[in-house]
């Protein structure tokens, strides 16, 4: 009679392999070098975090209306930000008209929201996107500048985050289509178009943005008659858009060159013309490939908008700088710049995360 063999129940894995300890051993203390790096990082955190926390939170002043409120505490004076917050957002936009700015932003969020919902069919998304592209700039322009019964607000009164978003938004929406056209033109077989596009791209890539802005604000007026004055913001917008379009063109060209010749030939064999071939076969694949490059350019553009401070436009950064020159608030530049950095980071990080999710969603065979 055979004795039934009862297997010994499985022992739990050793503590040193699983659980938090196992994780620590695997990831932080796996080799002498890693142990050294971990300890060094810990040390740096220990010396950096407490003073930072003390300055930003524990010893900071949050309430009050004047600088005197901050004299008692040794930390940051966030009162400075609170008092100037509206100005950092809207610049010199008149108080009574600020609802128009809010409405402009709200309109964009509401109308663009369906684009980000996955369940909405692509056909509707496409139509909606085209509709927004066609109508929204006009509506936003009227809302922000005035006319049609609204009080006129000159662009010199725009400022703060509003101006930063206007420059970045216009720059992005203008640069992408223009960049695609330039990229197609550069690969064109027609010598006239090709030369034109190459010249354009190489010219705008060859000069720094700061020079472009400076030329547009300082040199251009000298060549125009005295009674003819271009809007300063418009000049900057044109400069930024053309400049970024040149960069965008090269990013898109990278995508175009990665598409195998077979795709072009297959499209041609189906009897598609140039625009149909590009629009239906080549560009969707090419643009998908270069999403990281496009977003990279957008993020760079967003940060480059701060350069307009050299031509006296009051974007977020310049608005902060202006607030630090008010004699009633001298000496709070650190708080101001920390705030500006946080806002810029928020937007850039948002763009970066969105591009990652977009890449994941659109990956159809390319991702390794």
């Amino acid at each position: 009679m055979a004795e039934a063999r009862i297997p010994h129940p499985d022992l739990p894995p050793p503590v040193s392999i699983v659980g938090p300890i196992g994780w620590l051993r695997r990831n932080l203390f796996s080799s002498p070098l890693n142990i050294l790096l971990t300890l060094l990082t810990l040390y740096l955190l220990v010396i950096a975090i407490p003073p930072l926390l003390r300055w930003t939170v524990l010893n900071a002043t949050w309430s009050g209306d004047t600088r005197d409120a901050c004299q008692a505490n040794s930390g940051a004076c966030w009162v400075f930000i609170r008092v100037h917050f509206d100005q950092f957002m809207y610049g010199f936009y008149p108080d009574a008209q600020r609802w128009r700015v809010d409405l402009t932003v709200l309109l964009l969020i509401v109308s663009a929201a369906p684009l980000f919902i996955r369940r909405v069919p692509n056909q509707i998304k496409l139509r909606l996107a085209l509709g927004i592209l066609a109508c929204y700039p006009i509506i936003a322009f009227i809302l922000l500048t005035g006319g049609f019964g609204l009080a006129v607000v000159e662009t010199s009164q725009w400022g703060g985050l509003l101006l930063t978003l206007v420059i970045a938004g216009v720059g992005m929406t203008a640069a992408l289509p223009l960049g695609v056209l330039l990229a197609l033109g550069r690969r064109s077989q027609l010598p006239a178009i090709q030369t034109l596009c190459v010249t354009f791209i190489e010219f705008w890539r060859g000069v720094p943005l700061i020079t472009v802005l400076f030329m547009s604000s300082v040199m251009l007026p000298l060549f125009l008659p005295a009674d003819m004055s271009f809007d300063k913001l418009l000049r900057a917008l044109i400069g930024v858009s053309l400049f970024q379009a040149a960069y965008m063109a090269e990013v898109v060209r990278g995508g175009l060159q990665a598409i195998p010749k077979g795709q072009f030939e297959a499209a041609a064999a189906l009897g598609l013309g140039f625009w149909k071939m590009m629009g239906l076969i080549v560009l969707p694949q090419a643009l998908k490939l270069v999403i990281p490059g496009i977003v990279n350019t957008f993020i760079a553009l967003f940060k480059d908008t701060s350069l307009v401070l050299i031509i006296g436009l009051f974007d977020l950064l310049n608005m902060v700088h202006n607030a630090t020159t008010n004699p009633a608030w001298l000496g709070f530049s650190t708080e101001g710049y920390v705030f500006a950095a946080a806002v810029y980071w928020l937007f850039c990080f948002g763009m970066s995360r969105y591009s990652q999710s977009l890449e994941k969603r659109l990956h159809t065979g390319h991702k390794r």
Partner: protein
Amino acid sequence: MNRIKTLTAVAAAAVLLTTAGAAYAGKALDAIKERGFIKCGVSDGLPGFSYADEKGNYNGIDVDVCRAVAAAVFGDAAKVKFTPLTAKERLTALQSGEIDVLSRNTTWTSSRDSAQGLNFTGVTYYDGQGFLVNKKLGVKSAKQLDGATVCVQAGTTTELNLSDYFRANKMKLTPISYDKSDESAKSLEAGRCDVLTSDQSQLYAQRIKLAKPGDYIVLPEVISKEPLGPVVRHGDDEWFDIVKWALFVMVNAEEMGITSKNVEEMKKSANPDIKRLLGVEGDKGKDFGLANDWMAVVIKQVGNYGEVFNRNVGAGSDLKIERGLNALWNQGGLQYAPPVR
């Protein structure tokens, strides 16, 4: 080859013509009156001189000069549009006609007055380079600064003036250059340098940024001349006269004891000088092609020079700059205006 030459010549001529057209566009004053407001170029942020407050209103001594001109021309100090300009674009903005008058802590120099086609109308603020030191050093004069470590802003004339001054007085100098004024203030506080040098008007602003402003003093020596004033472009003498006299009126008013508060009572004064200035007697105001009492309007709406100085940079402000060179000529300063007669 020839064709290219001709083309370049034509292009150059076209550029010359348009720039000349821009610089001499006829009567600036007529254009301003027709437009209904004055376009004034100010700084993009300089404590006490021009800055926008939390409400977005422009303030400062340079700003008040423009308000005075608007009060003179339109009888309303609010009829002025401010254009904040950076140091680099300020002169072109004026030359190209983007602004009518530049009031932006601009130093009056010979080349700006001649080759650049500009006219300085007067001096709103006599500035000059000075020194800020910790009281603990016990230094009373800049001559005692031998061997000092001095914080200075890089790439400015300030740096050159500093080394000139020390060399002329046979003193040893260790300069430390900084890019931003905030950095130099911080390093003075940390004791990395003994002295901080900059234009005096800026030293007072720097002092506020320190944790204990009371521990530091500005030395009496001024080692360079920086007369700051409003600028107009060549080509319209009537406009030049108005901008020039808007400032003179404010200085004269202080000398005669006329303030924005008492200007109405002063109109009853028996003093003929005051009567002429306020437009009660004679037609001195009309000579400028403006309302006869424009000088009284300027004083009423903007104030006399002393009031403007006091509320923007002087004892009535956070900066607390002493009058010094900017006191009236009969009180030991340099502010002097020709008589109204």
